[in-house]
Each structure stands twice: as C-alpha cells, then as structure tokens.
C-alpha cells in the first residue's frame, strides 16, 4: 500500500494487511492526532488496510507561537 503523509508530502510504501491502529503505531503517530483517509472516506482505528490501498494520513495538529 502507498501511504501519503501530509503535511509532510512524503510517501511511504508498506506491504501486508493491518489495522489502521497498527499502521499509525508503525508510523509513530499518536492516536487522535491524524485522520486516515481512503477513497474520500475516514477510517476508524479498527478498520483494515490492504496492499492495494492508497491511504492519506493527514495530521490535524497545527499552531504557531504560544
């Protein structure tokens, strides 16, 4: 599967079926800090992603000076 990380605009290729929660863990992303999108739909942590999927992982955290 091909993962597009935004806003970094970096792609990562992974193989093997896994849950969204597992995918985020492998990417080092804290739960609740990114949306996982496939075919214009949000995925829950419990859903499976497959080898031929194109996934966008979009961070939700933004901010400037405190």
């Amino acid at each position, binding site marked *: 599967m091909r993962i597009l990380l935004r806003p970094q605009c970096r792609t990562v290729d992974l193989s093997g079926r896994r849950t969204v929660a597992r995918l985020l863990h492998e990417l080092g992303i804290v739960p609740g800090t990114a949306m996982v999108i496939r075919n214009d739909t949000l995925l829950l942590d419990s859903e499976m992603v497959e080898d031929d999927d194109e996934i966008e992982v*979009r961070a939700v955290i933004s*901010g*400037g000076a405190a």
Partner: protein
Amino acid sequence: MKCVRCRAKPEVYLRAHNSAFCRSCYVEYFRRQVERAVRRQRMLAPGERVLVAVSGGKDSLALWDVLAALGYDTTGLYLAQGIGEYSTRSRALVEAFAAARGLPLRVVDFTVEDGGMAVPDVAALTRRSPCAACGTLKRHYFDRAAREGGFDVLATGHNLDDEAARLLGNVLHWQRDRLARQRPVLEPSHPAFVRKVKPLYLLSEYETATYAFLRGIDYVVEECPNAAGATQLVYKDVLGRLEAASPGTKAAFVREFLRTGQPAFAAEPTAPPATCTRCGMPAFGEVCGHCALVAEIARKRAASLHAEAP
C-alpha cells in the same frame, strides 16, 4: 461499532466521548456542540454582526461554516501576511470558500498596510521572531477591522488543543495576567475593543479537522513555514500523548481551569488599557505595540535608505 445516533456504519470515533458517528450525524453533533458553547457562554446575541477571523486553516473555516449554517450574520476577515506561497495559497482557499457560499469577506493586506508590514520583512528588520511580529500585527488588525467595520463580535477558531496548549504554557511560566484573560469570551476592556469569542474552545483539533473534511472544506493542510519548532507545537505534542493515555485529559484540564482557576486569577486587580496616542486603539504605554512596531520599521527603512545614498 455503530453510529450512536442512527446505528449506521461510523466514520468518526471520539475517544474522549467513547462515541462513534456516521458522516451526517457527526456534522449534526459538531454543530450542536458549537451551538451549546455559544449559548452557555453567551457568546453571541440575535442580530449581532460577527466578524470571523479566517486563516484558511481547518479551524477557522469550520467555524465560519458552522456559524453561517446556524444563521448568524457573519463576515470573514482574512489577514494576508505576506508569507510567500503559504499566504498566496491560504488566501485563494479563503476566497474560494467565501465565493462558493456567497459569504462576505474582508481582506487586510499586510504588504500595503502602514507602509508595508509583511511578516518576513518586519521580522528581518526588527530581529523579532516571525511569530512575535505576526502576533502583534494580527491582534491590531483584527481589533481595527472589527471596530472600523462596526461589528459587535470577533470570533476566532481557537480549539480545545489551542486552549490546552496555551494554558499549559501559561501555567509553566505562571503568567498570572494571561491566566486571568484566558476565557472563551472576552468582554471589551476598552471602547475600541469588541467582544472576542472562541466557539470551538471545547472541540479538539481532531474534531474540527474531521468536520472540515466531512463537509468537503478545502483548507490549507500545510503548516505556516514559521511554525516549525514553535513552543505551542511542543505543548500540543505532550498533551496529545497524555490524551492518548487518558482520553478526556485535555477537556478536563481546560474545563476545570475555567471553573476553578481562572476566576481566582481574574479577581486580581488589573489596570485597564490606556489609549494609543497615534491610532486610538488600546495601549499599555503611550503608543500601542503595533504603532511602536510601525515606527521602528519606518526608522530602520529610513536609516537603510540613508546608508545606501551616494
């Protein structure tokens, strides 16, 4: 797992609420949360004109979308800060958002205001951090636009994560004056101010991002280039880890502060702002921070021209 409202397949799961929602029910849930915050905190009254500060990011566009959907009289305010491609892109998205919905939009262009106040130029000339320069300018132009436009309220898209990170920073440095002013509603402390409200203050960034996504709002995903390494992002990262370990931590942190801590800090006597002798806006000295910055820029530009003269 099923949608808590209609039992359909869910698209969003909120850990802090242990609740899942389908797309349409989530949009309804989000709007009701905003409506409840506005009502409970008495942020907006019927018939008031609301100026919504929009950056092109998810929070401010989600806020404008909700307030317009709830029937409020809203006008967008976009500050074009002159931060290269980032400003070009965010302005285009804001203009497209407003045009698609037929909503009025005002634009303040930093590159032409007060002789040219683009954030990168101001930061370079004054050796301030871009975020410090931007903060001073944004506050002034927000306040001025609200006053000159005759608006009753200025609404900003600050969310729960913003408020929790700000609270953590204020507590770590025991900024008593800032803790006293950290509220979802700020009544004007000077005749040139309007009321300032934060209707998203109890909705997390995840919630505002999912709302924007599910509503098909095209927002700027890229971060401001000056935000890299910003302290607020460090605080948000820490709070995000605490939230993952114990869902609901951020909301409890902010809610309990507002219930018990903030009133104690607000009870301490503070002097109201004076009036800037140059622009008439509030100031804590003879001139406001904005006018001091404009004067410093003018001096440095004049000195630079003088040095270059043959």
